[in-house]
């Protein structure tokens, strides 16, 4: 068993992990390793299309206070406002830093960073849309990922690629490192380290139709949960309105920001009825529900479960220059030219608002008193600060991963000035080894692919955009049944080298955990707020539920108050 010694280990090499690594990597006296199950440039940050929000005011008047307000309102007032203020303020300097690092943003005629409209982003506290999303065509995430990776290379950050982290080492509640499995050799490695940060991204793969990559299986959240850390606000999962029909591939909100329109089978611009002010640029939860309502009432295209995203009135130049990537997705995967025909779309599972609970410095907390776990950090989609509350606004995840990824990096550097190295116990890899051995040796004939498919199909049905008590209970029972079958899987591959059969089996265990946390939290919250819509409790209930859920793996719930500084909860209308 190889053992490595580091000051800090960062798990995940998307935007959050890389920005933290860059921040730490500039401290020459610290030994930092980034462990990633993918080559860093394969991370799903690279899929982000439309933009990153910051009130630069390059195209028209804008202020960070407006951005903060939109974030709070967009999140249906479940947002912690101290965190939202940091997000909106620091977004601005973060964009400039990225630009200085070389990010090739699109430019205005006078050479400044170009900005465009995006859902839920407004001027004067909700008066009308504002140009706030900085972009590089519809490849913004790609450019962020590349730029950060490049600067990490320049600063000699140490990467361990295709190392799957499978366990977190805590000794008496203090971080001691992680256990990682090297895919190439099948060997387990121990990374002994004074600080650990999780930046492992989301878990869209618990749903059948998703914009998320195959590798987004919630590993970091599951690992922490198994080690006694609660998960926060797991009931809030965002469906993006416009995924390509059946495939789930995203048609960025930038499409509607540039003027595309949603239509039903009658050709009607139905958002006029649901959101008279913001129309097709209302927040995602509202549009996704409107779409499902249209479909349920028989106004889906040909009466089926999809609608049309119409670009045909836009000049071809807009498609070619501002939306080249999504134009090519429609052509490649559907054979549809968006300049001539509307694109069939349906809501697609997109983003986890909840996750590993942290404070505004990325420090993971273990309870409702905000008690930090010494040395443990999380940032990015796997974490919950919470800046997105019950529903994230478009362009705010890229801000979140960078602002809080970097803050975590900075705080780790501070922490490492004093923190002692904690010795690890005798067999630090024994739990991980046992988990993997069990998967390898079990022989009940069940198949990983079949269980995963059933989980995702049922989650879509019973824990999707509209939820109710009986369906959620049904889903819990289903998960119990699937866990039972999971204990009886049979793998085809029992070798050591690059054993992806085993890898997918281990990831399925994570999917089952995060799905269960989602369903339990959804069943528990008897109100509707943001992306969490209970048909049996259709109203928001601030008296009872203006609070964050913390769910422990043993089924225990705790609650954290929402931090309110500037904006009192109001009814949410657009």
């Amino acid at each position, binding site marked *: 068993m190889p053992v490595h010694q580091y000051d800090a280990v960062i798990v995940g090499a998307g935007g959050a992990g890389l920005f933290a690594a860059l921040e730490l990597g500039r401290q020459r006296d610290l030994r930092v390793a980034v462990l990633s199950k*993918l*080559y860093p*440039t*394969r*991370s*799903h940050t*690279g*899929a982000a299309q439309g933009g990153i929000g910051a009130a*630069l005011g390059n195209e028209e008047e804008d202020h960070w206070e407006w951005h903060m307000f939109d974030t709070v309102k967009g999140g249906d007032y479940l947002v912690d406002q101290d965190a939202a203020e940091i997000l909106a303020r620091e977004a601005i300097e973060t*964009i*400039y830093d990225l*630009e*200085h*690092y*070389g990010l*090739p*943003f*699109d*430019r*205005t*005629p*006078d*050479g*400044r*960073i170009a900005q465009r409209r995006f859902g839920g982003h407004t001027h004067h506290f909700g008066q009308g849309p504002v140009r706030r999303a900085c972009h*590089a065509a519809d*490849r913004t995430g*790609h*450019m962020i990922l*590349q*730029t950060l990776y*490049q*600067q990490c*290379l*320049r600063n000699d950050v140490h990467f361990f690629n295709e190392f799957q982290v499978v366990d977190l080492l805590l000794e008496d509640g203090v971080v001691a490192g992680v256990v990682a499995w090297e895919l*190439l050799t099948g060997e387990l490695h121990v990374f002994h380290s004074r600080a650990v940060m999780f930046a492992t991204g989301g878990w869209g793969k618990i749903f059948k139709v998703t914009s998320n*990559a*195959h*590798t987004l299986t919630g590993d970091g959240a599951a690992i922490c949960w198994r080690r006694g850390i609660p998960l926060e606000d797991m009931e809030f999962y965002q469906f993006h309105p416009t995924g390509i029909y059946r*495939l789930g*591939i995203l048609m960025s909100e930038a499409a509607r920001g540039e003027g595309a329109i949603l239509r039903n089978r009658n050709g009607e611009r139905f958002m006029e009825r649901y959101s008279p002010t913001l129309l097709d640029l209302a927040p995602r939860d509202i549009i996704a529900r409107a779409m499902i309502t249209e479909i349920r009432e028989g106004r889906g295209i040909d009466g089926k479960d999809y609608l049309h995203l119409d670009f045909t009135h836009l000049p071809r130049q807009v498609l070619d220059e501002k939306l080249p*990537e999504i134009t090519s*997705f429609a052509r*490649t*995967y*559907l*054979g549809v030219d968006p300049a001539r025909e509307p694109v069939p779309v349906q809501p697609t599972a997109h983003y986890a608002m909840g996750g590993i609970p942290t404070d505004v410095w990325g420090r993971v907390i273990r309870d409702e008193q905000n008690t930090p776990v010494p040395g443990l950090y999380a940032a990015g989609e796997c974490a919950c600060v919470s800046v997105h509350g019950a529903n994230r606004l478009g362009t705010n995840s890229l801000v979140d991963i960078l602002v809080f990824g970097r803050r975590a990096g900075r705080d780790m550097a501070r922490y490492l000035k004093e923190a002692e190295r904690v010795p690890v116990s005798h067999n630090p890899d024994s739990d991980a080894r046992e988990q993997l051995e069990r998967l390898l040796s079990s022989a009940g004939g069940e*198949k*990983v*692919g079949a269980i995963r498919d059933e989980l995702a199909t049922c989650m879509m049905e019973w824990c999707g955009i509209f939820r109710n008590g009986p369906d959620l209970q049904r889903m819990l029972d289903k998960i119990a049944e699937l866990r039972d079958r999971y204990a009886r899987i049979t*793998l*085809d*591959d029992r*070798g*050591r*080298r*690059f054993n*992806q*059969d085993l890898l997918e089996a281990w990831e399925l265990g994570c999917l089952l955990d995060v799905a269960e946390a989602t369903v339990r939290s959804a069943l528990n919250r008897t109100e509707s707020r943001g992306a969490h819509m209970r048909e049996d409790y259709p109203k928001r209930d601030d008296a009872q539920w203006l609070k964050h859920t913390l769910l422990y793996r043993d089924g225990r719930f705790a609650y954290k108050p929402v931090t309110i500084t500037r904006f009192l909860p109001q009814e949410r209308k657009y």
Partner: protein
Amino acid sequence: MKVHVRIKRFNPEKDRRPYWADYEVPTDPFDRVLDVLHYIKWNLDGTLALRRSCAHGICGSDAMLINGRNRLACKVLVKDLGPRITVEPLRGLPVIKDLVVDMEPFFSKYRQVMPWLVNDEPPPVRERLQSPEERARIDDTTKCILCAVCTTACPIFWGNGEFLGPAALVAAHRFIFDSRDRAAPERLAILAERSGAFKCRTVFNCTDACPQGIEITKAIQDLKRAIVLSRT
């Protein structure tokens, strides 16, 4: 529609040499080759190894040789291939297992060209200015997703592992022609060496194969011209 799939398989842990394996797969014309491979992996033989993540052509994980051409498996549809599909690992990189190759030689070339913006002048408080025209100069080469399709389609690279290869040259181009960058002379000196830009014989394999549609050969010509100019 049933398709017949042949995959070149090799697991050095147990096979003495690579062999062809054959599978019959039920498909829809709009299925991606990646879906077909997943079908095999999840239903017929779980030992099949391949890299993939995003499944829509943006992460660069699943480059492989499909019906004799370098492609991303998630960006080719069954309807465009017909009833027989042949899949092999990329050429020119050592095979780890089945369709998974060792990417390290590829990334080490990338790192050689200093693929990061260098500008140590104190930055302004806000953004550095760049005109839309200056930005347009690098638009094409910033699209690279490091999939290795181009480099492993290049006969010069097959013949000479020292050659930097098209992808590294694309990365160099992206920075050399960025109006904000200050390290063009150093990069051009690297490219002027024996394994650099002049090894390119404009075969165009790279440009034909690039899934991002980057005009690679043209970028390399830009570089050659810049090297010549920097000498005078």
